[in-house]
């Protein structure tokens, strides 16, 4: 039953991300809801499940994009593992630490994705305005998505 709930939550996350980027972009920049969902799932879920969640969220982003297929999947998988390692040393439950984590990890994942793309397909996917603005959008949204996911875990035992 929980797996169905996870699938529904995954599809809902994807749907909200698509709707927001298609309709609420500001000068072509919108918060990366998939990223904030991956970050929250990585903090809340058990390690193996968190890594699987992040991998599939990355595949979803790869499906939507026009760039290297599998690059987001790899990036978010590695991010989930890094968060698992961080959790052992840092408290990521508080909103402030989530904001800092979202800010830094957005930049790191963007650069990681950029490196993969340049190395494997010689395509430069990074847009300067997204690089400058998106980390702040994600940082604002991360605690909200985290709170929402925590409530889902408490009530429906998802994640």
């Amino acid at each position, binding site marked *: 039953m929980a797996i169905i709930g996870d699938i529904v939550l995954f599809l809902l996350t994807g749907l909200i991300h698509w709707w927001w980027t*298609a309709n609420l972009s500001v000068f072509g920049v919108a918060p990366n809801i998939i990223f904030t969902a991956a970050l929250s799932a990585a903090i809340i879920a058990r390690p193996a499940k968190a890594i*699987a969640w992040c991998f599939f969220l990355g595949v979803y982003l790869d*499906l939507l994009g026009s760039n290297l297929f599998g690059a987001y*999947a790899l990036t978010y998988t590695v991010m989930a593992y890094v968060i698992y390692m961080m959790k052992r040393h840092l408290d990521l439950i508080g909103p402030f630490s989530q904001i800092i984590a979202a800010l830094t990890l957005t930049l790191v994942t963007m650069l990681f994705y950029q490196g993969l793309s340049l190395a494997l397909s010689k395509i430069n996917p990074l847009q300067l305005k997204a690089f400058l603005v998106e980390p702040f959008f994600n940082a604002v949204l991360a605690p909200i998505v985290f709170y929402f996911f925590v409530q889902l875990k408490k009530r429906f035992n998802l994640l």
Partner: protein
Amino acid sequence: MNREKDMANYAVVFFVFISALLLLFPSTRVAQTARVIASYSLYPSLHYGAKYDYFIRNVPENFLNILKIDQENRSLTARIKELEISNKAAESVQEENRRLTAEMGLSRNVPLRGVWARVVNKNPQDWYGAFFINKGARDGITMNSTVVGFENGRAGLAGRVFEVYPDISKVLLITNGVSSVICSLPGANFEGLAEGRGTWLLKVNYIPEGSDIAEGMELVTSPGGLLFPQGLPVGRVQKVHPKESFMNFITADVAPAITINALKEVYIVKKDLPPGLQGAAAK
């Protein structure tokens, strides 16, 4: 704890391996087509700049043609909407052009010197009372200049200028409750006073009893009037009211010669009143 750590390590190795497979091996025809379908369904755009060739690699040409046709359809639909708006604007301009051409032709037949002006502001609370025109003192408009309108190939008296500013003027319409025009029937030997009532009809008073006025007759400005040039159509008699026993005059309802509240352009007649009479006219 160790078991959890092991699970995490196995999971990350497994998914990194899968990701690497996706990255390193070129997408198959079917997988790439499925990706394009998913991507295009959510973001229907093929404008990926330098990444376009990479995006459509391994995708069958027939399928790409369908996407291109969809793009063409979207752009043509948008173009049709733009053209519909443009067409409406062109129709409006054409209609204005036709109207202005007709009015300009008519104004040449009016033996009066004047300037054209556009009606720029009407007050809904004073619909039959007054409106502003876009010509003022700088264009030679003076107080009490006669305002003529045109409709269906005919000229008609609309009112007179009663406030003049540098670039705009206010016109007192003949339908205004304080307006009155001395008028007469061509060929008849009586005059009446057409007074506005704040509605679309005028009321003509002081027609002598026994005058041969009847419904359908046209009233024109009288030579006896000081303000308006003589012979301008004022309106057509709609109804003649029977004489009341205590009155010596009869009255009539008159529909203005032009539809006052539909005027878009008017012709301002420059009438040079003798200096001594200008003050009297203003009163």
